[in-house]
């Protein structure tokens, strides 16, 4: 019965207690659904002295409409998000993203916070101890140097969460609880472009909730490409939120996942606003998405395919949302 490294199991009842326990155990880790962390622990990808289960914290499992925004606690399961009436009706990108994470049994356990803070993935990292030993490890765990980019000083493991790009396209704010109290920031600022330190959270900080604006003028959608349709991380995922007034495009946000160490918000789309969406605009979208794209050989599937397919998805979803309003 010793599949996992030895650790102490802690189960606080409040977020404040969780923070205290985390501060008292410097090598501890938070665990929520465990669908990502436990397989990783089994492969020797971490060896915490304690895991702090957030599953008993009731305050993290609330979904509530606050004015014209929806506040979703980080402990809410992805299955609950995907089935929530306000999400399915008014935030389709979020519903589609939550419903496309792994399989039904995972989604019942996996939480919003877990998917937002999902460990970055790489075909040289998410492997058994024996496999990694045979390949002399990599810098993300036990080794030195990146196996994907040989001369690189940084890690290129890809961020593979599905929910983050959808929430970024929906202009979401994230609420973080730290030692100095709680703060709110745009979700995109939770991430940075480093496969090993992909979150800007300070040690011990906890993602408590997200606040998504409910604005019916915006239409949104999320789509991902994966190897195995039933359960898989995205090779590339694209979320689009679009606002159309008459024949004019008045708002457009596109976010990518799986193609960088952080979810990416596509820049340079403001130039397209105030005009109709024509072929030239779609080409510009494709060009901007290509510029932002940082696909590396972190999956068995070819980089060019992942890059290409993310551009196609960005154009296709934008066109579909544009046509749907008319």
């Amino acid at each position, binding site marked *: *019965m*010793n*599949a*996992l*490294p*030895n*650790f*102490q*199991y802690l*189960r606080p009842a409040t977020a404040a207690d969780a923070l205290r326990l985390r501060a008292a155990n410097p*090598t501890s880790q938070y*665990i929520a*659904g*465990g*669908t990502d962390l*436990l*397989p990783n622990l*089994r*492969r*020797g990808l971490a*060896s*915490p*002295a*304690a*895991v702090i*289960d957030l*599953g008993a914290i009731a305050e993290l499992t609330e979904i509530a409409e606050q004015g014209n925004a929806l506040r979703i606690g980080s402990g809410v399961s992805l299955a609950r998000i995907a089935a929530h009436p306000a999400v399915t009706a008014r935030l389709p990108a979020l519903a589609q993203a939550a419903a496309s994470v*792994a*399989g*039904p*049994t*995972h989604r*019942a*356990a996996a939480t919003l916070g877990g998917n937002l803070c999902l460990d970055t993935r790489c075909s040289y990292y998410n492997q058994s*101890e024996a496999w990694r*030993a045979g390949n*002399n*490890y990599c810098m993300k765990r*036990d*080794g030195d140097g990146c196996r994907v980019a040989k001369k690189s000083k940084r890690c290129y493991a890809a961020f593979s969460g599905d929910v983050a790009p959808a929430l970024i396209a929906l202009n979401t704010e994230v609420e973080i609880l730290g030692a100095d109290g709680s703060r709110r920031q745009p979700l995109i600022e939770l991430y940075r472009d480093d496969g090993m330190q992909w979150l800007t959270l300070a040690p011990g900080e906890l993602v408590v909730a997200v606040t998504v604006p409910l604005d019916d003028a915006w239409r949104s959608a999320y789509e991902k490409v994966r190897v195995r349709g*039933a*359960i898989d991380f995205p090779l590339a995922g694209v979320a689009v939120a679009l606002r159309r007034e008459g024949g004019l495009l008045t708002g457009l946000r596109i976010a990518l996942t799986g193609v960088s160490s952080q979810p990416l918000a596509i820049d340079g789309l403001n130039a397209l606003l105030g005009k109709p969406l024509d072929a030239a605009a779609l080409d510009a979208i494709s060009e901007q998405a290509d510029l932002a794209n940082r696909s590396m050989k972190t999956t068995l599937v070819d980089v060019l395919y992942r890059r290409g397919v993310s551009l196609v998805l960005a154009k296709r979803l934008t066109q579909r949302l544009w046509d749907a309003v008319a």
Partner: protein
Amino acid sequence: MARRFRRLPADFVLPAGYVAPHIFEPASKYEMIPPGTVGRPANRCEGKGTIVKSILRLKVNGRSREDAVAENALLIDYLREGVGLTGTKQGCDGGECGACTVLVDGQPRLACSTLAHSVAGREVETVESLSHEGNISRLQRAFHEQLGAQCGFCTPGMIMAAEGLLRGNPAPDREQIRAALAGNLCRCTGYVKIVDAVAAAFRTGEAAQ
């Protein structure tokens, strides 16, 4: 095609001094590397903590239990090794195959990606709970009759995932069955007969009512 083997005559004897050719390389060719000398960090399996056992109270298949369980034990290891319920199968060990699916408070849950202590106070049901006094459940019978099981390794997980579905949705259509079983891998049946079996099971239930 030339015959590659011929039958030896009944009076065949090996010539004196014959040494069989080494098909496998002798083990002495490989030197044993003491653990900890290569890049492998020492004490990986031990982690940084110590083994801590604490009391776990929960219900397994309707019976209340109280066991001293290591705090790092996975639910599947607790069920298979602690309780001795080996019906739940350990497949990929990474949450990719669904063979370890059990019900926690009636909801399908992957026992390989769940800590035993995280289901404290809850009710766990494994495939063993479905049969009563030697009679298999309608779902098990349907899997048997519709040939939903071949090698049978995925079957406990399939049945528990389907059981979870049928409790929440007594009359699912084929798409709903496929969606509910999407997380369960089968390498034998091609899934059609599994979906048939679940569909047949709920029809049996209708007939019984």
